[in-house]
């Protein structure tokens, strides 16, 4: 399942963002941010205590089941009294949740988390970024492993000179995508597709910001 991977902003940054905002309503998310322990019930409660300790008035705290879902509007309405008492909503979800909530209320919203990437759980407590929605998918020629995303430089014609025993030059914890692709294509007997010179990529297949309207 697609997961939004978040990390808590530093206390200093949160303090700075909340300067002059004394009454705070805290919102967590029961989906990705709960899984990554960044915006579940426990983290929301800890944030509440922390802010109270710093002299803020916490008017309420709650965890939305899915902060990025438009259905969250109904739940937010039930909490409107406590939300309205607050100067700002401190949101402990990914930036999709922050923006969804911003669209559904007229309150000032402040993110407590940084959204690192959209990834997938690949092991216990491990998440990897495997697709960055480039619009011109080349997985069919790379054995189902994405070099646009999994190679640090997004190279589509094979490895750079930095491959280090199968790891990426930037981090020993990250596999070199091109070692993985090579091994996979070799197993499949499809190394020829790695030998094909790929033309420069089209970075404007869907000029950002992406928008799609269903043709009815």
């Amino acid at each position, binding site marked *: 399942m697609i997961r939004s991977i978040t990390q808590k902003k530093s206390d200093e940054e949160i303090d700075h963002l909340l300067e002059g905002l004394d009454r705070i309503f805290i919102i967590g998310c029961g989906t990705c941010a709960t899984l990554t322990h960044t915006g579940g019930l426990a983290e929301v409660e800890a944030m509440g205590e922390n802010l109270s300790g710093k002299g803020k008035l916490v008017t309420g705290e709650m965890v939305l089941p899915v902060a990025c879902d438009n259905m969250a509007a109904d739940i937010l309405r039930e909490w409107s009294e406590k939300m309205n008492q607050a100067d700002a909503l401190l949101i402990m979800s990914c930036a999709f949740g922050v923006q969804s909530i911003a669209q559904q209320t007229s309150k000032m919203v402040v993110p407590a988390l940084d959204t690192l990437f959209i990834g997938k759980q690949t092991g216990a407590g491990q998440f990897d970024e495997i697709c960055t929605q480039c619009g011109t998918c080349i997985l069919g020629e790379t054995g189902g492993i994405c070099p646009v995303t999994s190679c*640090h*430089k*997004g*190279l*589509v*014609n*094979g*490895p*750079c*000179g*930095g*491959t*280090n*025993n*199968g790891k990426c*030059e*930037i981090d020993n914890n990250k596999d070199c995508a*091109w*070692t993985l*692709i*090579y091994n996979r294509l*070799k197993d499949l007997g499809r*190394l020829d597709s*790695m*030998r094909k*010179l*790929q*033309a*420069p*990529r089209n*970075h404007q297949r869907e000029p950002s910001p992406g928008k799609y309207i269903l043709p009815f």
Partner: protein
Amino acid sequence: MVSNFKKALESGKFVVTCEIAPPKGTNLEKMRHHIELLKDKVDATNITDHQSSVMRFPSLGGALLVKECGGEPILQMTCRDRNRLALQADLLFAYSRGINNVLCLTGDSVIFGDHKEAKGVFDLDSSQLIMAIRKMEKGKDLGGNDLDGELEFCAGAIVTPEANPLEPQLIKFEKKIDAGAEFIQTQAVYDLDNFKKFMDYAREFPVKILAGIILLTSAPMARFMNKNVAGVNVPQNLIDEMASAPKGKAIEKGIEIAGRMIRRIRQERMCDGVHIMAIGREELVPDIMSAAGLL
């Protein structure tokens, strides 16, 4: 017009290139000094492009300086800092000023450099940059539009013969040649028996190969490279030899080793020449060449 470097490559002689790094700032004195010292001793001089992702005076400016001093520059171009518009524009400018040798590189990650929060571009990769050059020579840019005025480059690339795993690196090497690379300067090699094996494979391709020689300056420096530079492997016997040098004489030992390696590469006709990298010690290149019997 065919570049002088290309003529040297095609002459069958043992070709020697070296590299000079532009300064951090506008003081070109040291660089000019290195150019003056080396320009008549080597066949061409690479000018590095923000090596290790450290922001410096541009390689294009350095290559121009080589030209002004009467030398033969090889313009290094990485794909890290410029998109396809900027790369092509710089190629047009380079050619217009008589710079007609280019070494195409992907480029190190920005996180190794001194602007660690910068955006890495990588709009093209090294093989696509070579493709771009070949296309421009036919009068079209990468967008398929006509170019006014001719251009012609001697284009090259790099390979890491000691990469691990090696096979994906070799596929990339072949793609660079398919794209139109005429010469290859290798990452540093130290184990010449290994390099010979690489050459047994590489010799089959229509490309000139210059073996990369990095001057060892101390035993700790050799160990540091083994640990930190991907694809560089200094064998233990060379590290021991460096460590055996009397105090203060390590550099002399490094020059002796580099000279010995170049001599052997040349005597055994392993490849078409060498690319000498005396990182930060460019003034020692003539000593290395003397030790190799090239001066």
